[in-house]
């Protein structure tokens, strides 16, 4: 589904990803772990197409197409979802309006029929209920006045409604208490299916107790230095990243 080959990318003339290669197949969950500054967030931004990040080498294909040639909204319509580490507050735009506009924009770009008001409401209500976010909150401005945990739940609500093929979750576990972590993890697990893939980007092993990955990769200085199964996360938790850098 996703094939990253020898990717070099950076921002402001500084190289951050330095020959990163990774293949993610449908149905798989991959975790990328690494110390601060290893390039974890840069990877997620480059894959989602954020302006300012320059790709200087390598390639990324998604379902056979050149992902890097697509604009951010086209990537979303193709099925890429980025759950942000710091979800943005947007005063004056309600969550429901935002989400419905997004869903229908994606459907239009894919040549599908737009969701009716009733169909959308059903999707949004079900997603909010599953993730323990009061539906009333979705009527408020996007993330405004939401706690850290509520923002992350809201990201998961968006993901559930938009039903991406590939979820890139950038430190979705940061800032969550144990209860919120469990709810968000359940949200991620519910989305697991043979046609979808998930890339979890995280500092800590804790999330991986709830969402058990098929593969764990260690990212250091912009490249993957080691790949293993879930046990690798435990090893990292025990020994730290220091031992990997060598």
């Amino acid at each position: 589904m996703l094939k990253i080959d020898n990717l070099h990318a950076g921002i402001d003339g500084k190289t951050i990803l330095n020959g990163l290669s990774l293949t993610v197949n449908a149905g798989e969950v991959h975790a990328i772990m690494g110390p601060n500054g290893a390039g974890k967030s840069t990877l997620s931004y480059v894959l989602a197409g954020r302006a300012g990040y320059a790709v200087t080498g390598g390639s990324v294909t998604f379902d056979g197409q050149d992902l890097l040639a697509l604009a951010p909204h086209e990537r979303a319509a193709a099925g890429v979802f980025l759950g942000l580490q710091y979800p943005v507050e947007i005063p004056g735009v309600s969550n429901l309006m935002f989400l419905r506009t997004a869903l229908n924009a994606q459907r239009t770009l894919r040549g599908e029929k737009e969701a009716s008001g009733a169909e959308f409401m059903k999707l949004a209500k079900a997603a909010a209920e599953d993730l323990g976010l009061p539906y009333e909150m979705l009527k408020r401005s996007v993330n405004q006045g939401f706690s850290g945990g509520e923002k992350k739940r809201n990201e998961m609500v968006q993901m559930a409604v938009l039903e991406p093929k590939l979820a890139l979750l950038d430190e979705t576990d940061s800032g969550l208490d144990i209860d919120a972590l469990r709810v968000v993890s359940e949200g991620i697990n519910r989305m697991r299916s043979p046609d979808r893939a998930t890339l979890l980007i995280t500092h800590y092993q804790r999330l991986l107790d709830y969402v058990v990955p098929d593969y764990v990769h260690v990212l250091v200085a912009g490249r993957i230095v080691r790949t293993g199964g879930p046990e690798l996360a435990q090893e990292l938790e025990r020994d730290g990243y220091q031992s990997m850098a060598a």
Partner: protein
Amino acid sequence: MTALLPTRKDEAWRYADMAGVARAWPVAPEVIDVAAGEALARLIETDTTPGGASIRHFAIHIAAGGSLTFHILNAGGGYGRVALDVTLDAGAHFELGGVIIAAGEQVLEIVTTVTHAGPGATSNQIIRCVAGGTATATYLGKVAVTRAGQKTDAAQSFKALLLDRGATANAKPELEIFADDVKCAHGATVGELDATALFYLESRGIPPVAARTLLTRAFLSDALASIADDATREAAEARVTAALEPRL
């Protein structure tokens, strides 16, 4: 208003397009009298003839305990100016919501003088503007409180979004206070669309122009929030969206 053509030396005309002023001159003031205890609402839209010049000047008196809610959509023409001279008697209220959407080489202005002539009068003015191209958007807002205007509560808020490097926003709040027990607040900011918010919308599948429209409309909606009638407010929001789309 005098029949004499104003000049740029006059502070109130400093940012005006003088060629446009000459074309629109002379201007007959439109009079609005709000009777004691009466509540009125007005919504005006400037002439949108491309390249046209229009000046609307309102002389407004709100008698004791009366209130006027006034909304302005200033998006059209080459030069468009709406000037309000408002006098408030005791306990009267004036609410203004103004939207300026300027593009190309347009020069669009809202100029207000609100005089609190009696005790306990209140006024609230919210102006939001968007300027692109090499357009100029201006808000000059003067609040005057006479000796009789004790317990005045006046507020002014101006915010502008600049869409292009060549666009200009001018804001000049002015206070002239002769009473000693008053509350007058004002604030002005000029900025750009938030790049992080734009990326967030786009990353969810919203195309760039729609994302810019959504953010800009939300920004402008502050100025329309005080339209009490839902149908009128929704119609005004739709007019704003229609004016914005070709400019983004």
